[in-house]
């Protein structure tokens, strides 16, 4: 396996990890399988496209073609995607959490509502912008580095570094802040959290905004490799969900490891001459199903040596 393949695998893994961690945290702390995560992804991508499109002339006029201009462009793209993702989280909170969270069978109701939101958002994007894909400005620039004889594209390196950066921030927040402590308590035992004065209503909003922002970040980073389209969120949603399952729903380290495993598996299968790209999805799902048959609690179950 050469270096280019490893970079490609990590590139896939970082997008998958951003989606899977969000879905995993949401499930265990809010109790929602968020089917609208794909819509958040697509909407954030379109918002970044609109904002960068609107700001392009302004930035070009004021800053010209300097390094500062491309930095401003990158900030506008990532910032707008993050903020839109967080706002999508607020919408999901208002529609799929607040009205129904203490009703019986809440997880199923929330699944149906978020699925509805997903379909509505995708159709709304199709209605407004049409089915054509839109290219976003390349914030990492065009070009490649030569490292030990292999070429690494800027967008791949930028995606990996950006994803690692934002995941470190997220995990640090979960680990060291007081709100993060409350979220972790809620993830591990909802009843114990209630007896510690931690309410689901109060933790759900920041968690939904955070996971929405993660999906927005995934959209901003993936937009550097492929185009943004109304249905762009479908594959990241499916991959994110299945990887969250592979990691053992609710386990953040499990989701991370799962994303890296699937990233390498996909890159590896794609590179095998007699298999090739068309067997990538097949191999991925075969792998996930096999793991879940052998270890129903996923990778998180292997890592977890504590007991309830």
């Amino acid at each position: 396996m050469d270096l280019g393949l490893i970079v490609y695998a990590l590139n896939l893994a970082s997008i998958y990890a951003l989606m899977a961690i969000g879905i995993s945290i949401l499930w265990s702390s809010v109790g929602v399988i968020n089917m609208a995560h794909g819509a958040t992804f697509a909407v954030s991508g379109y918002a970044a496209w609109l904002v960068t499109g609107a700001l392009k002339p302004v930035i070009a006029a004021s800053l010209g073609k300097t390094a500062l201009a491309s930095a401003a462009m990158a900030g506008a793209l990532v910032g707008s995607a993050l903020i839109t993702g967080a706002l999508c989280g607020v919408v999901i909170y208002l529609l799929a959490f607040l009205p129904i969270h203490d009703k019986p069978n809440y997880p199923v109701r929330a699944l149906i509502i978020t699925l509805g939101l997903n379909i509505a958002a995708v159709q709304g994007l199709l209605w407004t912008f049409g089915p054509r894909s839109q290219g976003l400005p390349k914030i990492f620039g065009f070009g490649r580095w030569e490292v030990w004889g292999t070429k690494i594209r800027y967008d791949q390196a930028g995606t990996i570094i950006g994803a690692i950066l934002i995941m470190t921030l997220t995990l640090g927040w979960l680990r060291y802040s007081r709100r993060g402590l409350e979220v972790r308590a809620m993830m591990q035992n909802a009843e114990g959290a209630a007896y510690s004065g931690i309410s689901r209503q109060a933790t759900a909003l920041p968690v939904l905004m955070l996971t929405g922002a993660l999906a927005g970040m995934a959209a901003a980073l993936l937009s550097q490799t492929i185009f943004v389209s109304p249905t762009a969120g479908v594959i990241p949603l499916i991959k994110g969900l299945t990887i969250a399952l592979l990691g053992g729903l609710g386990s953040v380290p499990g989701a991370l490891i799962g994303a890296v495993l699937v990233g390498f598996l996909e890159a590896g299968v794609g590179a095998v001459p007699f298999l090739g790209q068309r067997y990538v999805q097949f191999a991925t799902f075969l792998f996930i199903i096999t793991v879940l048959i052998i270890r129903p609690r996923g990778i998180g179950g292997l890592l977890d040596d504590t007991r309830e």
Partner: protein
Amino acid sequence: MPELLEISQLSAGYGPLRVLHEIDLIIGEGERIGLVGLNGHGKTTLIRALTHMAGWQQGSIKLDGAEIGGTRSQGAGRRTPGLVKRGIGVAPQGDAIFPGLSVRRHLECGAHTKAAWRERRQRIDRIFDIFPPLRPLEHALVGKLSGGERRMVSIGRMLMAEARLYLIDEPSLGLAPKISHRVMEALWDLPVTGAMIIAEQNVTLLTGRADRMIGMHAGRLRGDVGHVDLA
């Protein structure tokens, strides 16, 4: 004696099952109540109903004169964090621990008031004084601790913030006699500002120490006796 808790006509249950049948109970300031009764006769449900954790409930509960009861057919646990913040400390049955948090982080979770959070270090130190076996385990994951240590962590979490009413459900459940005695001794030694209800099957652990003993049978209170010594 001022009335701290006033329960009247409290019924509660789960789905079609009615566990508590129109309970009336008044608890005064500074009282330590021993709630005794067999398995499945409603001790835990009474404690859960006081924090709106039962499946459904109806009837009045007054804490310091403020109504916190009411009729509710669903939404178990929705009001619980608010009631905890109003001054009901709970050490639930089965401990409800956070397996992936260290003992210290776990105790910090219990410091939900502003004052408690500000002086959490001193308070954690105080908990370690009450339960010395926890001190060397400060950074251990709670999910790896033994049953007795978990019980101490769960009670410690309850003690991190001041409460008006402490509810402790089966502190001796599943523990070796020696450890359960130690846990009970620690509970009796606590300086109680409000009131405390300890639900317990093992009557001998309560005799001589509880101010009042209340029996529960088939979802009703039976027998309300003052200071007793069965020994």
